[in-house]
């Protein structure tokens, strides 16, 4: 029983990070109707960058976080300017392949810069120990990353609900033309959403890298996060979080009870079933098409 509860808590804390990355994914989809297949590579590059600053350069944690978030934010802002702005109004396959092109490029860049650093880890900022919460032993690292991810998501939700920039971005997501006629700069809103998504995925990469080490496998998280976003419905932040938790728990449970090989495909099996039975996810908008 205690084993099951531990598994569930592990699943939830991993799932919250998946959810966090899925939120970045939803953000881009909402503002520009682009599926960002490069999300996983952003997670990976973010984690490697963070490692470079914290370990190779040796900056303190707070400065490292500010610097890396600034760099990836600028990079995300720049990405909108070059390959993505010409993609407005292009067919879906073009937008898919352009993000995949970015993904392959980022992977190549990561190979060039970090391939020689095998088996690297973040320095431990806190000593890991078990805390009893209502009689359940929980690792403080896990709890910490759980709350960090949760705070980020809540902050993002508040940002979208109340801040002026957030409202602009939501308006741009609703309808580009209408937003433009209300005096909102749609391109800037999209650029901002890419910047925020890059920062959010870097945060996710940092947390995941802290928990399981930094390697090129981190890029697979992008596809898992995509499954999470799909389960929740592509238009909803709370759906993305919930989807992340569902996927995380399902993954840990199958990993323990059925087999390690199946653990890697469980997100995709869930994804196929969601696609067949409820393509618009739990909280997504159902679109009605007319000719």
């Amino acid at each position, binding site marked *: 029983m205690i084993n099951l509860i531990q598994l569930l808590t592990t699943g939830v804390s991993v799932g919250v990070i998946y959810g966090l990355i899925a939120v970045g994914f939803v953000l881009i989809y909402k503002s520009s109707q682009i599926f960002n297949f490069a999300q996983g590579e952003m997670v990976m590059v973010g984690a490697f960058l963070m490692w470079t600053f914290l370990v190779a350069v040796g900056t303190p944690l707070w400065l490292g976080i500010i610097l890396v978030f600034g760099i990836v934010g600028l990079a995300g802002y720049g990405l909108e300017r070059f390959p993505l702005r010409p993609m407005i109004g292009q067919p879906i396959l073009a937008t898919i392949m352009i993000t995949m092109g970015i993904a392959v490029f*980022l992977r190549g860049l990561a190979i060039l810069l970090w391939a020689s650093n095998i088996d690297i880890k973040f320095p431990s900022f806190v000593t890991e120990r078990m805390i009893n919460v209502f009689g359940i032993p929980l690792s403080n690292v896990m709890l910490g990353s759980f709350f960090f991810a949760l705070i980020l998501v809540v902050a993002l939700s508040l940002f979208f609900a109340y801040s002026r920039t957030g409202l602009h971005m939501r308006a741009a997501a609703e309808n580009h033309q209408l937003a433009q006629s209300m005096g909102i700069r749609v391109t800037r809103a999209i650029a901002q959403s890419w910047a925020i998504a890059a920062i959010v995925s870097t945060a996710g990469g940092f947390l995941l890298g802290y928990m399981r080490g930094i390697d090129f496998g981190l890029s697979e998280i992008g596809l898992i996060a995509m499954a999470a976003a799909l389960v929740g419905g592509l238009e909803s932040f709370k759906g993305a979080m919930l989807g992340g938790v569902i996927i995380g728990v399902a993954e840990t449970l199958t990993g323990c009870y059925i087999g390690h090989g199946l653990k890697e495909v469980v997100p995709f099996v869930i994804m196929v079933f969601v696609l067949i039975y409820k393509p618009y996810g739990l909280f997504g908008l159902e679109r009605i098409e007319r000719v």
Partner: protein
Amino acid sequence: MRRVSGVFDTSYFQDMMVFRTKYHLVGIGTLIAAFLMLPIFAGDFWLAFISTTAVTVIALQGLNILSGYCGQISIGQTAFMAVGAYSSAILAGRFGLPFWLCLPCAGLGAGLVGMLFGLTSLRIKGYYLALATIAAQFIIIYMIKTPFPEITGGAIALHVPDVTVGGFIFETETHFYYLIIAFTILMTFFAKSLMRSHFGRAFIAIRDNDIAAEAMGMNLYRYKLLAFFIGCFYAGVAGSLWAAYARVISPDDFTLMNSIWQMGMLIVGGLGSTLGPFFGALFIKLLNELCVVAGPFITSIIPQIGAQLSASLVEMSFGITIVLFLVYEPRGIAHRWEILKESYRMWPFSY
């Protein structure tokens, strides 16, 4: 379709001809003859290069039918290739079937598996379908890797028995070269013919607007599933040829990255054109070879970069190529080729 000056079409049949003038026939004949003569001049390296490229071209023709003509985005083509490769290898290895029987069986198997995943296309499209095919990619590779390792060889490798047709054993690079080239010509001919028939027109109608196509009385389910079947059949044939050629297959030959590469090749070559797969596969493969050669060269000049440069260059150049093509020439090299031909015909009044 513009003709050379002095050639006029007087019937619909003439208008639809693939080889309208005798220069077309001479040109294609020369090209095929050149490919058949190549083993006399070229070394094994270039024969191997062309063989692997030609296998990719076959898979790309299938992907082109599925994604380029019918508009059903599939990012799992190499998984269907894996189905073909493994079923061909298992049929030959465990049941001792001859190669000429394995190959169509591999195509059929891959086509049926493709149809199974294509079922999702009845409810979803666009991004969602792309995600479903990515899921197919992972699920198929998992099925190969984990549940039946004694049959599929698991995650490590599966040895493929020698290919024999009527007592003749395919051994050398040249033998495989002829085998693969023959199939490439056959499959390309089949693809071209199919896309000129009413199937091709139906596919294009579905690509352009599937609801409108349905309203005009097309059976969407039938045509979408057919597109998946044909596209994956091609993948299966390509996989079977690849298994025969490579002798050893492993799940690592058929990853999601490979599928993305194939889609990228198709984009570079040009979607919705029979020539596109040739241009795309050749362009990207040549670019790869260039990077593999250039990497060590640059490292020898600036040793600080490290030995991973060529691996990194391969990926980065591919990413940049896709992005540049999508932004500046979304219709691919095939479109440029058409423009070139046009301006050649209209010379000196080309614009």
